């Protein structure tokens, strides 16, 4: 099956790389356990060496005692990341290359996990399908952690007559819930599906940079422990936005947040470059830009935003870390720093991040709607224009998070304009989905129901977003529960429910098992109704004037909070049922045929389970993957229009 690749290497006139030792070299000895061991050893050594030197240095040289301890923990966390990456074999590639030892074909096959069985999931494996499944499990774990924290928050807010948690711990769980869920949502679609499905969908044998692909996942893996350990170190007590200078007075747990974001930003940047390059350069023959699946376009749009805006967020945390670890004052007003500088840097990513999450989910829904309606995509060009419009305008909307900061009241006018204009390209995406549903017979399978759910949630989230984009309204709503309900409708209602639908849709290809839709649907709909109850009630609490991030509040808000908490528990039950369906189907589901949905998209044309290099013979593409449907019985007047469109699309 990989004969095409082998034959290139076997040509006589191409100098062959020399095989040094067994295939794979140093990486043969590495797996997740050696990684964790090396990371822990380096972290412990750094901690002890550092405590001999950094803490005394901190107490003598800087303005406050904290500095030494913070520098120590920053060094420890960074040592963990470096040690882990060394232990799992991430540096073997660059070292080999600097020694002048190119990879042989046998090496490359070992790295891709050939003949390694299940062990390849625990190693620095370059095969995009392995990386995709690793991302899927990681996303599920993060959703589990974030969901547990959400349950704790709602428990505290439902018990209105006393404090369940101490204010310290409550602040720590809201901050950790926020950032864990943000990370989980960012990887939820682009991680598992972007890595596993996208290369097959465009007819490639792997990603453009397989080793960078492994790097992006294991960086994410290394980035998460500091975040979770920080809960034991006082936690992130300042919200997921960690505004300065509150973050500067938070306990050492804040360092965990900063290191995690700095490392995670590298991970997303690498993944984004990889996804974009793969789609641009690795498409099958005949796949012109008019024939690229819209999901790939959505992933590119999302990656572009991540690539441009994540460095802002990363740098805000580099500077914040410097403030804590070296006593500098980028954001400390006492020594001439600016809190507004931090807020700007943060929201430069903080807002586009929502689109980074929602756009891949929406694009996945377009693929799903097409297959389950057995209709062509309503308009490929309008969909692409919608993505482009959102990406473009997303660059100039961040100040709507700062209407009430007093930073630049005059800037509220232009940013109100840009924020309300972004609803127009968003409308394009809704139009394409509605147009694809229009007059079709729906195959009401679970993935298709996710399309309906996403559209409803997105319209609710979009309209409440329009309220918030209006400065006078924001003067009442800013920092209230209304905002929380609004962005949960976008991130969870559109992002997470969309991701659930997309994962069910591609589940047979990824796991070679059919998803148990009967149990899955029970979980999905339970979660959906719980979601509506939770966040509709939260809108009411916001309208009544409840600020966000509080653990006790006026009795006037009791009823809406009780309803919200009941809804949250229903979501929790629904999600557990859904998770049970995922796990049981994955372990013992019905064996999946190669193309259970009768889709024309490339990823369903190869066999299941997908072989190492995806296709025995690389496909040649002759049309876009949306060629469904029968001639329209009503189609008389607009036949000329349609002929034109169809020619353009083929």
């Amino acid at each position, binding site marked *: 099956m990989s004969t095409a690749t082998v034959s290139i290497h076997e040509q006589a006139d191409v100098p062959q790389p020399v095989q040094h030792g067994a295939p794979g070299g140093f990486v043969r000895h590495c797996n997740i356990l050696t990684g964790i061991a090396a990371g822990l050893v380096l972290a412990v050594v750094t901690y002890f060496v550092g405590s001999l030197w950094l803490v005394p240095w901190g107490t003598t040289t800087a303005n406050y005692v904290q500095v030494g301890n913070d520098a120590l923990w920053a060094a420890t966390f960074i040592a963990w990341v470096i040690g882990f990456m060394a232990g799992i074999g991430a540096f073997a590639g660059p070292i080999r290359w600097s020694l002048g030892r190119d990879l042989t074909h046998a090496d490359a096959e070992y790295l891709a996990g050939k003949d390694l069985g299940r062990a390849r999931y625990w190693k620095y494996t370059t095969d995009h399908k392995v990386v995709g499944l690793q991302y899927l499990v990681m996303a599920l774990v993060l959703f589990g952690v974030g969901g547990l924290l959400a349950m704790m928050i709602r428990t505290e807010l439902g018990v209105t007559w006393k404090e369940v948690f101490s204010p310290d711990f409550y602040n720590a769980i809201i901050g950790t819930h926020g950032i864990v869920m943000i990370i989980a949502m960012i990887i939820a679609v682009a991680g598992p599906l972007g890595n596993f499905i996208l290369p097959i969908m465009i007819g490639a044998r792997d990603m453009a940079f397989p080793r960078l692909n492994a790097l992006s996942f294991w960086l994410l893996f290394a980035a998460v422990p500091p975040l979770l350990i920080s809960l034991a170190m006082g936690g992130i007590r300042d919200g997921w936005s960690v505004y300065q200078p509150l973050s500067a007075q938070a306990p050492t747990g804040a360092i965990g947040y900063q290191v995690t974001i700095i490392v995670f930003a590298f991970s997303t940047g690498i993944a984004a470059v990889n996804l974009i390059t793969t789609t641009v350069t690795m498409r099958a023959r005949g796949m012109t830009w008019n024939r690229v699946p819209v999901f790939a376009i959505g992933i590119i749009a999302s990656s572009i935003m991540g690539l441009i805006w994540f460095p802002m967020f990363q740098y805000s945390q580099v500077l914040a870390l410097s403030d804590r670890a070296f006593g500098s004052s980028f954001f400390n007003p006492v020594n001439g720093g600016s809190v507004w500088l931090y807020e700007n840097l943060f929201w430069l990513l903080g807002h586009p991040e929502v689109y980074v999450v929602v756009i891949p989910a929406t694009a996945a829904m377009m693929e799903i709607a097409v297959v389950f309606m*057995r209709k062509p995509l309503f308009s490929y060009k309008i969909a692409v224009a919608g993505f482009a419009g959102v990406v473009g305008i997303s660059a100039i909307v961040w100040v709507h998070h700062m209407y*009430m900061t007093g930073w630049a009241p005059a800037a509220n006018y232009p940013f109100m304009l840009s924020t309300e204009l972004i609803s127009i390209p968003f409308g394009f995406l809704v*139009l394409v989905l509605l147009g694809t549903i229009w007059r079709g*017979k729906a195959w*009401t399978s679970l993935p298709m129901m996710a399309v309906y759910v996403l559209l409803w949630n997105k319209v609710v989230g979009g309209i409440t977003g329009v309220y918030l984009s209006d400065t006078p309204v924001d003067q009442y709503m800013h920092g209230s529960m209304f905002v929380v309900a609004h962005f949960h409708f976008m991130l969870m209602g559109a992002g997470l429910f969309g991701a659930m639908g997309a994962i069910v849709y591609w589940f047979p290809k990824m796991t070679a098992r059919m998803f148990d839709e009967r149990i899955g649907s029970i979980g999905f709909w339970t979660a959906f109704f719980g979601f509506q109850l939770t966040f509709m009630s939260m809108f009411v609490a916001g309208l009544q004037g409840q600020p966000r991030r509080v653990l006790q509040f006026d009795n006037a808000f009791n009823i809406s909070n009780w309803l919200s908490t009941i809804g949250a528990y229903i979501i929790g039950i629904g999600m557990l049922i859904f998770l049970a369906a995922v796990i049981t189907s994955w372990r013992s589901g019905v064996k999946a045929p190669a193309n259970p949905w009768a889709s024309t998209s490339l990823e369903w044309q190869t066999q299941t389970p997908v072989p190492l290099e995806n296709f025995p013979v690389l496909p040649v593409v002759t049309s876009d993957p949306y060629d469904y449907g029968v001639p329209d019985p009503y189609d008389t007047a607009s036949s000329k229009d349609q002929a034109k469109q169809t020619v353009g699309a083929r």
Partner: protein
Amino acid sequence: MSTVDQRPLADPEQPEEPTNRPAPRDRFREWIARPYARRIVILTVILTLLIVPVAFLVLHFMNLSGGPASPVMYEIEKTMFVFTVVSAPLMAVTLAILLYSLVGWGRVKAKGLEPPMQESPAIRGNSTATVLWISATSVLAFFLVVWGITELATITAYSYGSTAADQQPNSQKAVVVNVTGQQWVWTFEYPDEQGITSPTLVVPVNRPVYFNVTSLDVVHNFWAVELGIKIDANPGAVTNTGVTPTKLGTFNIRCAELCGLHHAYMETTVKVVTPEEYQAWVREMGGKRMA
């Protein structure tokens, strides 16, 4: 070397070249005659009528103490009401299509692992629908922008116009209050009343109040809920806002920016009183009117 176009003018008597496309009115008649089109239009109208009352619900929830307590709050509530009403048709049409799709255009189920392979019309684009949708959303967006800018100018005038009241007689001069946030209390200082300070805000009714807001430690947010004003209290900077309370009563002030341990308890009240009560309060606090 004449540059005059010498081609014959089109004869106005001559009928235009016939096209395949019927006139828009006829096309609409043909479209609305289709059973699904009529039903979706009716469903949209019904849903719009069901959603519009939500606007009253919004007002109900924003008006716990009954009626806006300042012109600013009145403008905010008006905006919420109008936005809910104008976005109702958009929400209704989306919901109508989703609901109708599930009941009207047919559903199919798979039998075992066999895809149903149902037949749906191959609709690739529709210029009329596209133009209508994009125009409708654009008109709506531009309406919201124009409305928002006008309203923002209005409430800015209400809030910041108070400083221009210097020339007015004493009884109408703005009350200046320096608001200081610190973990986790608010302090209100009245520089014009010999610097009296108070942990609660007391202001006279129907007289502009002008706030200089700052913080001693971290970022707080000064939110006088029922008065509809909100501004960050930043360390190292002074921000401003203002309001003219028009309703007597005691209202809430909350911190709307996470500020650490006791953020939830960083609350106080604003008491809007008659001018006489205000004078009495100032005297009681130990101040004396200057001039």
